């Protein structure tokens, strides 16, 4: 029997939790090995083999179903207890293999659980959401020189907007980082993910809303999503 591994939790947290159906509607259970609990369930490996051979990227195809099922299970459990989410596609050769895995990788999994304990990740994007006036309302130039000047002005406007975007993103990053344990992303900081302690989430979201004043009058918007399981931080984050 092939087992699919959704997440790892602390064994002492994993009793009596609500578990949704998994990939292809298969039952999900927790399997305990010493102080770790695996959130796992049986799957048909042939479906995964087919996904590898010929990925179905349709939003309603099997792969999208399986990805959503993985995320649904992880998020349902995450809503109840701390966990380490696994990347999609972890297939184990039966219960003995699972016990072997949990034993062999115990230290690494415990370390990841320490990062994930009582934290959640929040994603923040600073996104331009309006075209500049030059782009949207430029009159038809009367001749070539005027056309060139219009193009130069438009390019300069875009450059200024770009610089302002990066500056605002940097300010947003600085303000929100104060409420986070770690951040994940690359410069420029326009699309960052923050690892936030659950007790600090109210302060984090309040800080995000207070940044509305910073963005007032700019063609930018701030988009926040969360709380989600700490996917970005359990495998080693970047730019903390």
């Amino acid at each position, binding site marked *: 029997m092939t087992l699919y591994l959704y997440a790892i939790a602390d064994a002492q947290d994993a009793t009596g939790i609500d578990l949704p159906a998994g990939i292809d509607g298969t039952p999900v259970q927790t399997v305990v090995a010493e102080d770790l609990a695996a959130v796992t369930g049986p799957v048909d490996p042939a479906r995964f083999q087919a996904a590898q051979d010929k990925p179905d990227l349709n939003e309603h195809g099997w*792969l999208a179903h399986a990805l959503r099922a993985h995320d649904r299970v992880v998020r349902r459990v995450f809503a109840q207890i701390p966990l380490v989410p696994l990347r999609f596609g972890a297939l184990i050769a039966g219960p003995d293999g699972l016990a072997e895995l949990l034993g062999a990788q115990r230290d690494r999994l415990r370390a990841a659980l320490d990062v994930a304990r009582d934290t959640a990740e929040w994603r923040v994007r600073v996104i331009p959401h309006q075209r500049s006036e030059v782009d949207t309302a430029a009159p038809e130039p009367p001749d070539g020189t005027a056309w060139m000047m219009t193009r130069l002005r438009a390019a300069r406007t875009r450059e200024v907007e770009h610089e302002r975007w990066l500056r605002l993103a940097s300010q947003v990053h600085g303000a929100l980082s104060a409420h986070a344990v770690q951040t994940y992303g690359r410069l420029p900081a326009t699309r960052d993910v923050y690892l936030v302690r659950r007790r600090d989430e109210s302060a984090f979201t309040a800080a995000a809303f207070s940044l509305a004043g910073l963005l007032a009058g700019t063609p930018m918007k701030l988009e926040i999503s969360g709380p989600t399981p700490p996917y970005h931080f359990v495998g080693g984050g970047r730019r903390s």
Partner: protein
Amino acid sequence: MNGTEVAIRGGDSLADILERVLDKGIVIAGDVTINVLDVELLTLKVRLLIASVDTAKELGIDWWSRDRFLVGES
């Protein structure tokens, strides 16, 4: 708020799920794993899906999406 928006989302659009589930999360390795799924290859292919117009709109990406420098990926 004079053109300012702060939007809070649940983070469960397909693009969000793909980015988290296919690209992040802890990876297990060892002899006990049945290595039937090339997640790295799938990640590359699914990024093409993320870049599709509809999904890009869902992400809030529009005219600047053609600027490689502007579209950073986390």
